[in-house]
């Protein structure tokens, strides 16, 4: 991959790390606050269902994770497996698409509620 493309991927990984740092703090804070009264599916859907703010937050969280994690995995695969650079990039792109699709599906399902 060209030096310019690698550099932009590095910037994307660092920028997504910054987003994740904030998102994880919010997420963990919410989890800690939420489990104080016991954790139930009904409580989670009540909090998230129909709330656009939470939907946007979780979609951003999912997008950051889908950018950040596969870039790290790509380097590990290229160095530690016989996949090579191209194979590792393809495997990571598939992982990115899967994380994005599954994460967005979960966020949307909670937003739309149990109906």
């Amino acid at each position, binding site marked *: 991959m060209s*030096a310019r493309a*690698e*550099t*932009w991927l590095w*910037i994307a990984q660092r920028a997504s790390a910054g987003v994740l740092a904030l998102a994880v703090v919010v997420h963990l804070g919410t989890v800690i606050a939420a489990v104080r009264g016991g954790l139930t599916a009904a409580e989670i859907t009540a909090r998230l269902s129909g709330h656009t703010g939470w939907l946007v937050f979780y979609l951003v969280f999912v997008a950051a994770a889908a950018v950040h994690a596969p870039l790290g995995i790509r380097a590990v695969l290229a*160095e530690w497996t016989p996949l090579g650079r191209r194979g590792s990039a393809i495997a990571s792109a598939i992982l990115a698409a899967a994380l994005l699709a599954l994460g967005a599906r979960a966020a949307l399902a909670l937003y739309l509620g149990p109906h």
Partner: protein
Amino acid sequence: MPDPRTISVSVWRGAAAGRFVSYDVPLNANQTVLDTVTWIQRHREPGLAYRFACRVGMCGSCAMTVNGTPRWTCRTHVNRVLRDGGLQVAPLRNLPVIRDLAVDMTAFFDKMARARGAFRPAADPPADFAVVAPASRERRAADAGIECIGCAVCHAACDVVAWNPDYLGPAALNRAWTLVNDVRDAGTAERLAAVAGDAGCHACHVQQGCVQHCPKHLNPTASIAGLKRAVARAAIKGEL
């Protein structure tokens, strides 16, 4: 019972294929690892291949793997690294072995060139001497990395080099960073393009093996981090 006045020095003999051969070497006060290798060559094994020049930590020729750790052997006292009354001396990792303790440094120095490690003057000669304030940010950054002696200890210590032999490595990238901070140099745009990418600064995992082993106590990892920032700035400005 082993003679307390001697130490057992186990030395690699051969090239990529070979074996360790042990020699009993007289123990002396203030003896360096290089002294023991020299003693073996002079008294036991005239054909032993190894490399050294200055013997005072300036030239960077004598690096070897001592008890599994890359070191400059001329400034490493035996009593500091002795393990169970002996030493194991092997050639540096991550470079092809020519014979015994001598490695082929070609790839290492080629990487310096690939990282644009040579000063590039501006096309028009300046009218006067460049004034470089010693306290300026650039000069301090260059000073921090400038004392590299090119011994390849960091290159041997780096796992990323082991995994990706194309990776420029800590020494070449550190050299590039000193020139990026040289206000007289005119080759930075080209240099940043040369050091970016998956065989350049972006391959570094910040494990800091180079920092731990550099005999000059330099911090190539910090230099590489500086390059990552400089390359990112150039990319954002569309200059990469």
